[in-house]
């Protein structure tokens, strides 16, 4: 049954290709609009400071084995000392930071802008696709699929006799929506991709506070097993030199 389906070339010229081209162009447009709307917020000095401390502690952790044990201990106590270590955060202060984060209207505004710049074009495109292209069988997927995919691929056509590999125009829109992400990362540069992931992170960890990462970093630093590699390097150098001489 499915193989008998003959699609008009006009569908290709006036549905399939325009739909895909429009999806790409809207993606590009969205990128530039969100770039224009992005407000350059001045970062809070305290947050920046805490971030830098975390980075420094991370560097210490990464290079721990390259310094002598005594030096490592000194640096470690500088960071994770219970009294005045850089990574030590008093309990009440941490609460304050979070409350401050929530009450900051700028951040909520920024997030709303970002979300809007994502949602509005999608809604508009979806409405446009529904208005112009509803009910077309627009494409055929070149591999067989099970019946379960029918609701996913034939959204908008209510025919149970059509082969599942045929795709309705509305479902083609969804396929484009997800599949073009790779193309966007190529033509718009990495900024697009990182922007998306950042947005995800912000959504997931709303009210993310630096003091929590300070605490986590402190724990990590406490767990580091110090093992100075320099003596072994002497052996290694000796081995290399012996090899050269002999």
């Amino acid at each position: 049954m499915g193989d008998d389906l003959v699609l008009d070339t006009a569908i290709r010229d006036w549905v399939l290709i325009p739909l895909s081209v429009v999806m790409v162009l809207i993606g590009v447009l969205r990128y530039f609009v969100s770039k224009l709307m992005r407000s350059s917020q001045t970062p809070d000095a305290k947050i920046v400071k805490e971030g830098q401390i975390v980075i420094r502690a991370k560097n210490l952790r990464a290079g721990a084995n390259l310094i002598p044990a005594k030096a490592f201990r000194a640096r470690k106590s500088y960071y994770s000392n219970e009294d005045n270590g850089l990574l030590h955060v008093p309990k009440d202060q941490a609460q304050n930071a979070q409350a401050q984060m929530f009450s900051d209207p700028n951040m909520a505004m920024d997030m709303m802008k970002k979300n809007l710049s994502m949602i509005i074009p999608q809604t508009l495109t979806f409405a446009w696709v529904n208005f112009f292209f509803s009910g077309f069988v627009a494409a055929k997927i070149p591999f067989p699929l099970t019946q379960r995919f029918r609701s996913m691929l034939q959204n908008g056509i209510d025919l149970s006799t059509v082969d599942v590999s045929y795709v309705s125009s509305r479902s083609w829109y969804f396929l484009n929506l997800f599949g073009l992400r790779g193309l966007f990362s190529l033509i718009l540069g990495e900024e697009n991709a990182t922007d998306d992931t950042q947005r995800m992170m912000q959504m997931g960890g709303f009210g993310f506070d630096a003091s929590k990462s300070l605490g986590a970093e402190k724990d990590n630093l406490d767990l580091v097993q110090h093992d100075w590699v320099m003596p072994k390097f002497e052996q290694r150098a000796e081995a290399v030199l012996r090899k050269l001489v002999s």
Partner: protein
Amino acid sequence: MASTHKSNDFVDLPTVNVENMQNNIKVVLYSRTFMSIIGGVIAGILGFTGFMGFVFYFIVMAITSVGLAAKAGFSVQSYFDSWNQISIDGFLGGLLSFVLFWTFAYDIVHIF
């Protein structure tokens, strides 16, 4: 002989420039995405259907891995943490793009 072997153990010390590493990973992901899109168009134009197309995707990805390894001068350890990063990362991420462009090219050339 034993001592040279011992010294080889210490080469494993993680002395990695994180920024360069991230850049390398990004380059790998880019080339994978690019190859999956190009591969999808090629598969569509050649008219592969069903299982054949996915086999083609595997072949394209294998070629990409070999190409990346060749670009790294086959000394992958000096550019990446492990072989996985050059051979497996971004494998599934490109699949969706591949399927989309495969379908697109196949439909344009063969269905209508």
